[in-house]
């Protein structure tokens, strides 16, 4: 705020002059009016933060002025000036919108103190308004985001169901034993499995907001289990997994760590080349640990890397066309890492491979 605009409405010239003299300095501009009508006319043109108003004036009294002022500019802080300070008039003035009053005659410092109180009040009022507006906006944005998310989920759930339905419809005209029939059944299975995975992932995602007690867990053991479990799938695609376990414990949610490692390893295998490799390393770093998952897979460009951790994002290319995925694996991984106050980064080169580097603080 550069300059305060203060309106003084009093039929006594001596009061008006007094206010101008006492208050008119740098950062305060005083506007004077001899009666209510003139005061309102000025207030219409100059928005004033504070108005000093005499109670007893001819034609339009102070209280009536304050009522009109509230209608004109509800933000203006009104102070009653009165030679007849009684409890009744004070209460009435405040009910009608006055914030404070100052009895006549007043000393310069009394006037300054009242004005300072009004300025403070105006500042708080402005802060409250801004906070309220921000909260409104945040609420609107959250509503919109939620609706968009729901629509996205709806779409992701409906698509595979529509596809399976159309295929089944088609199947009515085919022999289940025919080659084409088998193909169609195979695709139905793939899409149905993907849908089941999606439902599970959605559940995971919704559960990741619950804070859970953490224990000291051996992250290396979790990696070893994941390697063992997913190793079967990797072998089918002729992909080798390199992992040398050395015990390393951190404080974390065990289930979440299992999911984190599982998602990253699964991706590294899915998006790899036949005969390719996945390398996992786990080592202490500073007060925490660093887990690196590197694959010799198809990789991805910079544009795709930007959207990598977004929900439902999937790289769409000829190479990835038939790879099943929900688009939630990395969104879940990122959420898990965030919940543990860690960090996750990705580096990738098309045709070469992708590396995910995760840092987790050892003790939260």
């Amino acid at each position, binding site marked *: 705020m550069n300059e305060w605009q203060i309106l003084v409405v009093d039929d006594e010239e001596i009061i008006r002059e007094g206010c101008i003299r006492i208050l008119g300095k740098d950062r305060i501009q005083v506007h004077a009016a001899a009666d209510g009508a003139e005061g309102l006319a000025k207030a219409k043109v100059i928005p004033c933060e504070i108005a000093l108003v005499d109670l007893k004036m001819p034609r339009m009294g102070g209280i009536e002025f304050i009522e009109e002022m509230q209608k004109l500019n509800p933000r203006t802080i009104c102070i009653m000036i009165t030679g007849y300070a009684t409890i009744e008039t004070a209460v009435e003035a405040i009910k009608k919108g006055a914030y404070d009053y100052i009895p006549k005659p007043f000393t310069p410092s009394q006037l300054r103190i009242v004005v300072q109180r009004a300025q403070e009040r105006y500042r708080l009022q402005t802060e409250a308004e801004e906070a309220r507006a921000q909260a409104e906006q945040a609420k609107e944005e959250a509503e919109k985001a939620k609706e968009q998310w729901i629509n996205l989920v709806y*779409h992701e759930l*409906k698509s595979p169901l529509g596809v399976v339905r159309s295929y089944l419809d088609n199947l009515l005209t085919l022999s289940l034993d025919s080659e084409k029939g088998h193909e169609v059944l195979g695709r139905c299975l793939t899409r149905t499995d993907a849908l089941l995975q999606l439902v599970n992932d959605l559940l995971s995602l919704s559960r990741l907001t619950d804070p859970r007690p953490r224990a000291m867990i051996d992250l290396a053991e979790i990696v070893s289990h994941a390697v063992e479990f997913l190793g079967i799938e990797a072998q089918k695609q002729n992909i080798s997994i390199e992992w040398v376990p050395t015990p390393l414990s951190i404080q974390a949610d065990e289930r979440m760590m299992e999911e984190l490692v599982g998602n990253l390893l699964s991706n590294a295998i899915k998006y790899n080349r036949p005969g390719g490799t996945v390398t996992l390393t786990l080592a202490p770093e500073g007060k925490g640990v660093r887990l690196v998952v590197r694959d010799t897979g198809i990789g991805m460009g910079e544009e795709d890397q930007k959207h990598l951790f977004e929900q439902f994002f999937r790289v769409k290319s000829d190479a990835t066309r038939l790879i099943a995925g929900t688009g939630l694996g990395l969104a879940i991984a990122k959420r898990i890492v965030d919940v543990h106050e860690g960090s996750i980064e990705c580096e990738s080169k098309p045709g070469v491979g992708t590396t995910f580097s995760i840092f987790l603080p050892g003790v939260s």
Partner: protein
Amino acid sequence: MERSKILLVDDDPDLIEINRSILEAEGYEVFASYDIEGAVAIVERARPDLVVLDIMMSRKNDGFTFCYRLKDDPETAGIPILMLSSVAMVTGFNLSLDEDHEWMRADDFLHKPVSAAVLLDRVERLLKRSK
């Protein structure tokens, strides 16, 4: 009689497969593309008689851009476009051809999933109209 050429554009390979079977069984010659770049190339090369297009191709809503592109080019403006999508739910709009025709620039519009009978019927009508 020369077979009518239909271009399918959709990023879901299963939907391409399903619609291709339906249309080929009816005697149409079918071209397909999973993305807009491929679709543009096919339009140039093969000059299809009709395009069946998925609006929600990706988060960027390429479908609309492709539509505008075809309609703005005098050489391709006459190719009828049948739009398929569940985007009505994704963006929260309830798209209807009557209200949104200007904006969508498509010739017809269907919500997925589309049955074989409905697809064939619309395709036939659009081809007849454009001849």
